[in-house]
């Protein structure tokens, strides 16, 4: 697998990653802890050196910590932001070598084989690494070794120690195994390596020996360098501020071209675009564009920005533009066919423009729904996030217009011969029915409180064709719709 060169691995451990990150933003002296709500208690998540010196420790209840240390300052922990921060550190670490992996939850692993000489040798490189991280306010422990396991062990349990002298906990084992090994008298890695393997495997399973072999180099272990997710944002800084709409549009065109090329490389289309225009006086205004379809055609997207850009107040001029595809969807190339609408994009562009005016969710289309209840037999969904569907089946004629049921004074199971509705006196010429529709008992619906409905299609001599229903369980007559 390997060509004889000695592998060198560096493991970085940030013992106080979360609190260091918080203190970078809110610098302060004195004891400081980050708290995290676990269950119903607020517990100490991460703490700085001063707090450790006062006897606080991780996982203790925050109220106890306050009692021990009245001048304690604290903030809420944000594990997601910590993970993002670790991702940033990983990206930064690729300046030292291309193979950088993440050791969850708070470490990095670098394969510096063949890259340390660029920085003047391993010692110099480690020193520079440490100096830079210290300057950034991060406490770090750095372990080096020929294997990933050895580097990890040194980073966590003594940077310069020989591997054999390190405790068994340095083998990345779970705490129960470590306790059992210590009870058996196997305290250091050297002792463990000298013990017979078969009883160990029987007692602890393959995991222990795998970790041991990985640390000693008998078993290979890979470092998975992570791929940076594509970053769909481009920016442009201008030597002179601009203010005319045409200039801003020209700048947007240039940005769009770069962004769309990137989208095309990744077979993606932008759904939401955000154009940030920063003015000379540092104020910034954003133009957001929500597209009806994922798109990556600069010629089509550019005109859609016109309305938003025209509304921006340029002030003393705009000197920086940034265009970001905030939401991106996969958009594989489609086969060109002669079937289908001639220009499908035109309607989407219109929907986008209307959407920027009144909100994209207000542009809707009907989709069929599987229900006998008249008002639930269709749904209205935003047109931008749906495709037209077929399958409109009306078992019986349905009215063209539906409205909330309007009561009518009448009695009996048959439609009345004459009745008044909306101030009109109507006489019935023909009534077709009944069609019984039962409420959907599995759904709570206040409109169907009156129970079963017997629907009639009532044609009046005056012309109006109404959809009326009678509720036999709770007698009453209502008009709910009108036929064409």
């Amino acid at each position, binding site marked *: 697998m390997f060509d004889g060169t000695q592998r060198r691995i560096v493991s970085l451990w940030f013992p106080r990653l979360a609190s260091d990150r918080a203190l970078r933003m809110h610098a302060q002296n004195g004891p400081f802890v980050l708290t995290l709500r676990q269950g119903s208690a607020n517990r100490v998540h991460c703490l700085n050196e001063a707090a450790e010196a006062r006897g606080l420790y991780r996982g203790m209840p925050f109220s106890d910590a306050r009692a021990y240390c009245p001048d304690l300052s604290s903030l809420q922990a944000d594990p997601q932001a910590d993970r993002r921060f670790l991702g940033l550190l990983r990206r930064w670490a690729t300046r030292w070598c291309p193979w950088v992996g993440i050791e969850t939850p708070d470490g990095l692993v670098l394969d510096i084989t063949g890259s340390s000489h660029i920085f003047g040798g391993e010692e110099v490189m480690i020193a520079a690494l440490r100096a830079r991280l210290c300057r950034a306010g991060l406490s770090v422990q750095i372990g080096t070794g020929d294997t990933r396991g050895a580097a990890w062990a040194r980073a966590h349990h003594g940077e310069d120690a020989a591997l054999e002298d390190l405790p068994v906990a340095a083998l990345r084992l779970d705490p129960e195994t470590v306790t059992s090994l210590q009870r058996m008298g196997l305290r250091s890695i050297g002792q463990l390596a000298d013990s017979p393997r078969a009883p160990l495997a029987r007692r602890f399973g393959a995991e222990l020996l795998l970790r041991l072999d990985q640390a000693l180099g008998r078993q290979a272990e890979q470092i998975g360098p992570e791929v940076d997710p594509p970053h769909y944002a481009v920016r442009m800084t201008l030597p002179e501020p601009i203010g005319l709409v045409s200039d801003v549009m020209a700048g947007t065109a240039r940005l769009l071209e770069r962004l769309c090329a990137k989208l095309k490389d990744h077979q993606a289309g932008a759904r939401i675009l955000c154009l940030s225009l920063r003015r000379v006086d540092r104020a910034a205004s954003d133009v957001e564009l929500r597209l009806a379809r994922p798109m990556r055609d600069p010629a089509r997207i550019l005109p859609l920005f016109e309305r938003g850009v025209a509304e921006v107040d340029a002030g003393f001029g705009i000197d920086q533009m940034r265009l970001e595809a905030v939401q991106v969807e996969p958009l594989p190339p489609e086969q060109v066919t002669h079937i289908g609408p001639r220009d499908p994009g035109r309607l989407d562009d219109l929907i986008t423009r209307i959407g920027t005016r009144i909100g994209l969710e*207000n542009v809707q289309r009907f989709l069929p729904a599987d229900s006998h209840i008249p008002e639930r037999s269709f749904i209205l969904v935003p047109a931008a996030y749906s495709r037209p569907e077929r399958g409109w089946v009306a078992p019986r004629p349905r009215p063209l217009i539906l409205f909330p049921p309007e009561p009518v004074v009448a009695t009996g199971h048959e439609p009345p011969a004459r009745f008044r509705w909306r101030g009109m006196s109507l006489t019935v010429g023909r009534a077709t029915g009944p069609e019984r529709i039962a409420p959907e008992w599995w759904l709570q619906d206040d409109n169907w409180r009156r129970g079963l409905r017997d629907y009639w*299609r009532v044609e009046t001599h005056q012309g109006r064709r109404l959809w009326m229903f009678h509720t036999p369980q709770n007698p009453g007559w209502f008009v709910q719709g009108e036929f064409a």
Partner: protein
Amino acid sequence: MLGVVNLAGASTQLPELTAYPPRRSRVHEASGPLAASFALWTAAQVGADLLWIREGWRSEQLNPLGFEGFDPSRLILIQTKDQTATLAVAEEALRDGAVPLVVLELTARIDLTAGRRLQLAARAGGTTGLCLIAEGMGSNAAETRWHCRPVFDPQDSTRQQWSLIKNKSGTIGAWHVRWDSKAHRVTVVSPARE
């Protein structure tokens, strides 16, 4: 322009439905209880996609299962918050020309300026606009104005009466019509069959 269609067995020559389908590049008006049906039949006969703009607060709603002849998947419904937004969206859609027929439900009378703007937008886009209005709320800028109401007939329960009550470039009239699902068009029927 649509020709005369005789029902089988009709002995008399039926009057021709003039000014229908509504002229392109113009804005028309329809009122009466079945103005919505007029819009849908027109869209079905022209075979066009349809943009329907209405104010979102209205409790009356279209039921796609009741569309006769028109495929609901070709309709795009736009819910606005007031009439100003309705007019703005309608103007944009008419001027764009992506959708050949734009229907807008109006809740208040529009003045001549607004009506004229719609006409100019329709002309620029080559599209047809159709305002659904309450009775007596017409605008002078409209090219034609129709009044549509259902008619009772002992045999036929889809019959409507369409009255052309304003026509800037022709005569007015009234017809009894129904939807012919085989020919996929509006046909004139004899009112004498009562």
